[in-house]
């Protein structure tokens, strides 16, 4: 197939490399260096999609990031990506793309019926229509709207591409490589500053690639290429294309998305698809240029109506004609530049200029070239459905209110220019309060908020000479401040044509009797009439008008629509634009892929995985692991076909009858040293600590200042001024910060140091009636008898030559010990325990059996210490010292904390001794009571008691103290269960605690 709209010998594409691609199933050809848009236009394809609301045909409007229409579903390397702008996507061999927003196809679209019903789809339509009946929303409205109106479809497959994050620091970050970006980067680089120059397009140079200028006796493009090659050679400069600086955050942190591989058929091995750069810059130069503004007239959304600058870019960069019979409609000189390029390539354009009698070098050149120009003329409406076929034009009165007689002229495209809008997004994001500049009818940055400077067209400077001069100076001055160098560079001679004043005219009045839609927002289908309705209905704030009409709220964020919308509101309201104000710009400037934002932090990389030194043993012995915070812990060790329930029961039972061993490495451990260590503990824990002898452990509970229990654990006095604190696995980090807070800020006079030693020690809990016998084998040289190592005793020893700490503490409620060795010896310790424990039927047990053991003993854990309970609630009030003050004590006399029917921990047993009780269920008095049924408490933890072989749960119950023996109901609406239960003591097994002391 021939590329009928491709010119010969024009453009920057590589004609030696022909590429085939598919659009909506049909094969086309383009060249390396094309975008999908330029290649489609070269093939005469202008219908690429449907609009969001009315499903009107959509073509191409721009040639870059501002594109509101040409959004496609892209297929690349067996993956698909939605909402890709055809104007940004570079062509590669085998590229496939499809239209979005079309159902069932781009040529026949069911949603287009909305277009004929548009009278029913005015501003706020969705708010008004789909409100009632409520039940219709999910079943009728939403499915319909989704099917008929959605944009692209996200892939449901796992994205196998790699995305990277990079952190970078620099002296100057320069966003945009047009004339101002190049000049400032060059000047700063010559002064030795560390410079990052970012360009969102594949080619550097910005407007220099399309404008007819001369810099230092070179064309703009040649000058740009020269500067870029020189910058690339400099070690202090990073030059990046395909890189969009999209967000300006606090303290000069900017984020840039680099599309490393999107332009290739397939990402190269070891390369990322995209890279997100977090850049902390000392100075930021914003050289993001400007975007041409549309002119507003009837059916101005018809395919073939596009920005004149885009038409020029397609011609000069890609060698592509957007039409062979073009009409240029302009209110300023920019339209002439486009017309001149057409003319130079053998095409005869017609220019309609809304101005009465403008004069400038460019206009003279157009006249000399023989281009037909009609002054005081406007396009009233575009005609044609899927492509412009003609235009209704008319003379307009000097006051721009009256139209003359309508004439129809044939054309195949309408190139519009309504002057230029500086791209001020980054400056605005930085907090810069922008100001309205009357001469250009647009906002420009005001006083800098952070270290940002806006240059060139982005700052409302539209002449090349002035842009280059101010940008050289800015680059030089800002870098001098940082590097203290002052290398003067010579300023090149600039030749450009000077423009005449633009016309303050942007919206063509409707001719009598015609009701054309005149669009402001091309992606969200917001027309002039929608804004008029919103204002009539009383909306005033531009932020409200925006949300009500959805103006500027599409994926292009109103890059082409914002200012025209503001102009309209200010005209109707009879206010000036700055009084109306503009809506806030927020990052990202353009959509960023979720993959880039997430980076490498997916799957197992989303958080660190911590493993105990015994992990490989657990793996070899069929452990099934569970996430415990960032730790992986064995939940149970599977034997044969056992399930979780069977295995945990077996393991727990073995602890009660023989001996078990559990990996408790994950417990938080804090080493506390210093002469005031005991005093610190005394202030942190609720019980007394000053008299704990060396070689003894004590259980302690710590509170927050509001009286709520924060954590519990045992702390052991290793020597006179040395303590070993343990915390729960979950609270380890918080407890350390808590201690540091009090030591550094509240009681700096205490001479104590704290440090986390969680990773330094591997821990094994040896529990069960035969644990002492096993200990005797492990430590044959020590006296581990009840007298030699009593309950809560501590000794230091050697485990076959390895330094070990032995604590006689118990979480399971059995006679039990905890042995700690240095982490590197953890596996050795574990294997010794298993080896020597064989004769006592030792078995490893996991967290599930551990839970069972502690629940039936009534020992509290995280599910009871849930940040809502006080000591009394968990029956830890016996540990509250009356004699001393401690953190949180003053809160304990709060009225609710001392009420006589305060909640308390109890045990719960089902009356049938069979039905398992779901955790989280509620306890109620009467299962039949009308809703809302009064909740008396909740089930905090459930297990199958191995001691009694029936279900047992712990609950936090109102007035729990007086509820023992009561019959209540457990209700679980989630599991649809109602279970009659009896309330019993939370100490279900060994209530007197004899086993631990045996």
């Amino acid at each position, binding site marked *: 197939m021939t590329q009928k709209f491709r010119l010969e010998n024009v453009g920057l594409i590589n004609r030696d490399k022909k590429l085939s691609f598919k659009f909506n199933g049909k094969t086309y050809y383009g060249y390396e260096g094309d975008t999908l848009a330029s290649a489609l236009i070269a093939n005469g394809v202008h219908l690429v999609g449907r609009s969001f609301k009315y499903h009107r045909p959509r073509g191409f409007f721009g040639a870059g990031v501002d594109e509101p229409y040409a959004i496609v579903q892209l297929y690349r390397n067996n993956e698909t990506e939605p909402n890709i702008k055809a104007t940004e996507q570079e062509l590669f061999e085998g590229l496939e793309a499809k239209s979005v927003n079309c159902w069932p196809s781009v040529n026949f679209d069911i949603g287009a019926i909305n277009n004929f019903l548009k009278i029913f789809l005015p501003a706020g339509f969705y708010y008004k229509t789909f409100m009632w009946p409520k039940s219709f929303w999910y079943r009728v409205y939403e499915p319909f709207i989704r099917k008929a109106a959605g944009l692209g479809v996200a892939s449901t497959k796992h994205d196998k591409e790699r995305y990277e994050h990079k952190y970078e620091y620099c002296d100057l970050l320069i966003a945009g490589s047009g004339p101002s970006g190049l000049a400032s980067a060059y000047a700063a680089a010559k002064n030795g500053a560390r410079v990052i120059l970012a360009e969102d397009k594949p080619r550097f140079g910005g407007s220099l690639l399309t404008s007819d200028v001369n810099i230092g006796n070179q064309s703009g493009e040649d000058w740009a290429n020269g500067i870029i090659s020189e910058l690339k050679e400099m070690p202090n400069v990073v030059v990046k294309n395909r890189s969009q600086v999209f967000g300006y955050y606090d303290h000069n*942190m900017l984020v840039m998305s680099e599309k490393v591989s999107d332009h290739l058929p397939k990402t190269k091995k070891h390369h990322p698809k995209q890279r997100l750069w977090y850049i902390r810059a000392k100075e930021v130069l914003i050289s993001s240029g400007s975007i041409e503004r549309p002119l507003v007239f009837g059916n101005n959304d018809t395919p073939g109506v596009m920005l004149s600058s885009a038409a020029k870019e397609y011609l000069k960069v890609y060698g592509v004609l957007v039409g062979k019979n073009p009409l240029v409609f302009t209110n300023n000189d920019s339209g002439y530049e486009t017309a001149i390029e057409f003319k130079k390539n053998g095409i005869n354009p017609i220019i309609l200029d809304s101005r009465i009698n403008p004069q400038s070098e460019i206009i003279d050149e157009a006249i000399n070239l023989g281009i037909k120009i009609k002054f005081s003329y406007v396009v009233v409406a575009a005609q044609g459905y899927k492509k412009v076929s003609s235009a209704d034009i008319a003379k307009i009165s000097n006051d721009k209110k009256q139209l003359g007689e309508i004439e129809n002229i044939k054309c195949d495209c309408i190139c519009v220019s309504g002057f230029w809008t500086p791209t001020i997004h980054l400056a605005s994001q930085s*907090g810069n309060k922008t100001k309205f500049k009357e001469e250009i009818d647009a906002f420009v940055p005001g006083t800098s*908020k952070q270290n940002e400077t806006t240059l060139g067209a982005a700052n409302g400077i539209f002449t090349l000479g002035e842009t280059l001069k101010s940008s050289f100076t800015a680059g030089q001055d800002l870098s001098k401040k940082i590097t203290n160098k002052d290398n003067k560079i010579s300023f090149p001679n600039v030749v450009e044509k000077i423009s005449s004043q633009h016309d303050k005219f942007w919206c063509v009045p409707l001719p009598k009797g015609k009701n054309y839609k005149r669009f402001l927002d091309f992606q969200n289908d917001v027309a002039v009439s929608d804004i008029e309705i919103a204002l009539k209905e009383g909306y005033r704030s531009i932020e409200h008008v925006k949300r009500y009409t959805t103006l500027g709220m599409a994926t292009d964020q109103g890059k082409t629509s914002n200012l025209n919308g503001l102009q309209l509101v200010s005209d109707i309201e009879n206010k000036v634009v700055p009084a109306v104000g503009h809506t806030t710009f927020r990052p990202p400037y353009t959509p960023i892929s979720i993959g880039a934002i997430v980076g490498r932090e997916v799957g197992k990389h989303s958080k660190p995985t911590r493993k105990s030194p015994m992990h490989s043993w657990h793996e070899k012995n069929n452990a099934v692991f569970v996430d415990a915070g960032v730790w992986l812990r064995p939940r149970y060790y599977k034997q044969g076909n056992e399930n979780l329930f069977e295995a945990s029961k077996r393991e727990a039972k073995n602890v009660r009858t023989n001996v078990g061993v559990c990996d408790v490495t994950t417990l938080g451990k804090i080493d506390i040293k210093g002469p005031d260590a005991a005093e610190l503990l005394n202030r942190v824990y609720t019980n007394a600590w000053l008299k704990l002898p060396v070689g003894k452990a004590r259980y302690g509970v710590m509170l927050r*200042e509001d009286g709520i229990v924060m954590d519990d654990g045992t702390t052991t006095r290793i020597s006179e001024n040395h303590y070993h604190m343990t915390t729960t696995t979950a609270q380890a980090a918080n407890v350390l910060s808590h201690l540091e*807070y009090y030591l550094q800020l509240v009681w*700096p006079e205490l001479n104590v140091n704290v440090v986390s030693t969680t990773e330094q020690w591997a821990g094994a809990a040896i529990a069960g009636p035969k644990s002492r016998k096993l200990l005797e084998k492990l430590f044959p040289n020590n006296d581990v008898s009840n007298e030699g190592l009593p309950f809560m005793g501590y000794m230091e020893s050697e485990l076959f030559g390895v330094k070990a700490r032995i604590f006689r503490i118990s979480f399971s409620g059995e006679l039990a010990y905890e042995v700690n060795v240095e982490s590197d010896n953890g596996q050795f310790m574990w294997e010794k325990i298993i080896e020597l424990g064989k004769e006592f039927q030792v078995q490893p047990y996991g967290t599930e059996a551990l839970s069972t053991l502690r629940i039936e003993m009534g020992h509290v854990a995280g599910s009871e210490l849930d940040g809502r309970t006080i000591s009394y609630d968990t029956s830890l009030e016996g540990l509250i010292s009356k004699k001393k003050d401690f953190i949180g004590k003053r809160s304990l006399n709060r009225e609710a904390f001392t009420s006589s029917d305060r909640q308390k921990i109890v045990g719960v047993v089902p009356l049938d001794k069979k039905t398992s009780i779901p955790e989280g269920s509620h306890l109620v008095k009467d299962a039949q009571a009308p809703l809302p049924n009064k909740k008396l408490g909740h089930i905090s933890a459930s297990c199958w008691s191995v001691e009694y072989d029936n279900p047992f749960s712990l609950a936090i119950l109102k007035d729990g103290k007086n509820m023992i023996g009561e019959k209540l109901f457990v209700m679980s609406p989630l599991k649809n269960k109602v279970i009659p239960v009896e309330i019993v003591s939370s100490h279900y097994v060994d209530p007197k605690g004899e086993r631990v002391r045996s």
Partner: protein
Amino acid sequence: MLHIKCPHCGMRSQNEFSYGGDASVKRPELNKEISDEEWDNFVYNRKSLRGKHLELWQHLFGCRQWIKVERDTATHEIFNTYKADEEIS
């Protein structure tokens, strides 16, 4: 992301720190008789100031020191940072 100068380590990104609230709050002395109101003010009542604010941050993934940061809560401008025990003029 804020850029905070740890008085011990130098300029670091915000993600190395954790926020610790109003630095002007003083914990009542231990064992001292105080009214419910005084205690409530210490535990619960905080002014949500707009503007200059002295606050606590901990350099959690760094030197682990609690530091004081003088920051504008509206603009995020950081005027100064201090060590925990530093006199603030």
